[in-house]
């Protein structure tokens, strides 16, 4: 492998076709992430964002192309526990309490009880679910469940985070607070993030780079470097440059397929 420290994630010519339904979810995707990058994937529903995340995580086998993580194959990276993932829905275990759900990856890593307990407490603090450690998932609201899933993914501080619309189910206030929390964790640690979102503002606010995808088949339509300085704060959202970048992402999205009328689509072919 050439200079593994140069790229954390390298996706080369990845195509993914689902035999069932004969859908080409991804077509010739090339994407590479340098260490400490925060890349958001944005694009209309069904353009293959979740599929791309799963391929990176070796949860789906690409039909063609190659994924390497830290210079290793995606398979090796997965068995080394190189990444943490948050799915679009919370995916909690009903038979485990909130605390035990968060502790699951720590158990898998063989952390001792005391260390797990401390980390879980810190994570509950972070997602503001202190009183709910002994509750079961079905006793929580959808947004609370999603916060548990986020706490679980952050708990073991993976070097690579794959996040599929983690804040989609949350109210605006919680979402903005967790955006700031996520950024501060990201700034403190050395991790690299692939973040899927439907919110242009969220993508611009968080990322070092926003990658726009277009549908049918899923392709990368373009990427925009976000040159807003870190640490980003509440004021960042009011910055003129922030609005400028939001507009650029929006235009790229519009140009490449979101809300296209049939005649516009025909004109593009």
């Amino acid at each position, binding site marked *: 492998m050439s200079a593994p420290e140069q790229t954390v994630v390298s996706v080369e010519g990845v195509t993914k076709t689902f035999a069932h339904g004969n859908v080409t979810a991804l077509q010739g995707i090339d994407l590479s992430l340098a260490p400490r990058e925060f890349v958001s994937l944005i694009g209309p529903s069904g353009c293959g964002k979740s599929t791309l995340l*799963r391929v990176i*995580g070796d*949860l789906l086998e690409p039909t063609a192309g190659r994924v390497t993580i830290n210079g290793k194959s995606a398979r090796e990276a*997965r*068995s*080394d*526990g190189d*990444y*943490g*993932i948050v*799915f679009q*829905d919370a*995916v909690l*275990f*009903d*038979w*485990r309490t909130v605390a035990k759900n968060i502790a*699951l*990856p720590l158990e*898998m890593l063989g952390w001792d009880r005391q260390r797990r307990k401390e980390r879980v407490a810190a994570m509950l603090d972070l997602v503001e679910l202190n009183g709910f450690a002994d509750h*079961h998932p*079905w006793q929580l609201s959808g947004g609370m469940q999603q916060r548990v899933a986020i706490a679980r993914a952050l708990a073991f501080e993976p070097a690579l985070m794959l996040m599929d619309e983690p804040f989609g189910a949350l109210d605006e206030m919680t979402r903005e607070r967790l955006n700031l929390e996520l950024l501060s964790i990201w700034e403190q640690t050395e991790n690299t993030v692939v973040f899927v979102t439907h919110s242009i503002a969220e993508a611009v606010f968080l990322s070092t780079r926003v990658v726009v995808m277009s549908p049918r088949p899923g392709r990368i339509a373009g990427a925009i470097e976000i040159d807003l300085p870190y640490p980003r704060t509440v004021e960042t959202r009011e910055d003129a440059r922030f609005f400028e970048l939001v507009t650029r992402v929006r235009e790229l999205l519009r140009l490449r397929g979101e809300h296209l009328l049939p005649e516009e689509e025909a004109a593009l072919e």
Partner: protein
Amino acid sequence: MTAKALLARAAQWLPALVVAAVVIGLWQGLIVAFHVQQFLLPRPSAIATTFWSDRHELWPAGWYTFKEALGGFAIGSGLGILAATLVGRFKTVGTALMPVFIAANAVPIVAFAPIADAWFNPFSPHSKMAIAAVLCFLPVMVNTLRGLQSSSPRQIELMRSYAASELTIWRRVRVPTALPFVFTALKIASVLAMIGAIVGEYFGGATSALGVLINSDAQIFQFTTAWAGILTASLLGIGLYLAVAVAERGVVRWAPRAQGS
């Protein structure tokens, strides 16, 4: 549990108790009012009296049959869970065996009772255990298999993202998901086991067995005694069911309760 919670629990049972009391009261009242012959339907009070006066014969007979049912329940359910585990683990075995199980399910088990008597000594409890076991096996096996197959694909994906082995996924995801299914099946099986043992005894068995007792009493027109035997069988059946239900509460603690809490 606080006194208040106990009261609330008792209040939940109240409607069922009231209904039972009304049914028994009506039964008693109508028989007295219409002078129904006792061979058609004895009064509940007469059944209760016999249940008590014949206790030295009925209760040991009930216990004898109950042990047969319990043995059959344990063997049938155990094999059912084992079979489901193997079938769930090896898909090809499953596809090969499933039609056989479905066909076996269509066999009226009562037809099997005389055969079981021929295989084992009809006077030994083993023949009844075999019938009870055969009755229990399929529902437990099919439900367990369904349970093992109903894990959410996302949960399994998440475990794979932690590099979990198949065995770990089995232990931490598939088994907990299957447990509520298993207990539903065990509750069905607990009822079937008692039925299997009693029906088996109708075809002949030890004189000290409850089914033999009910059958012979009915033949010599001792209907009240036969009914007292049925009452004994019912109480034991309900007892076994409740034992399974209590075990379920102990094991499947996470499930949202249908009522209460």
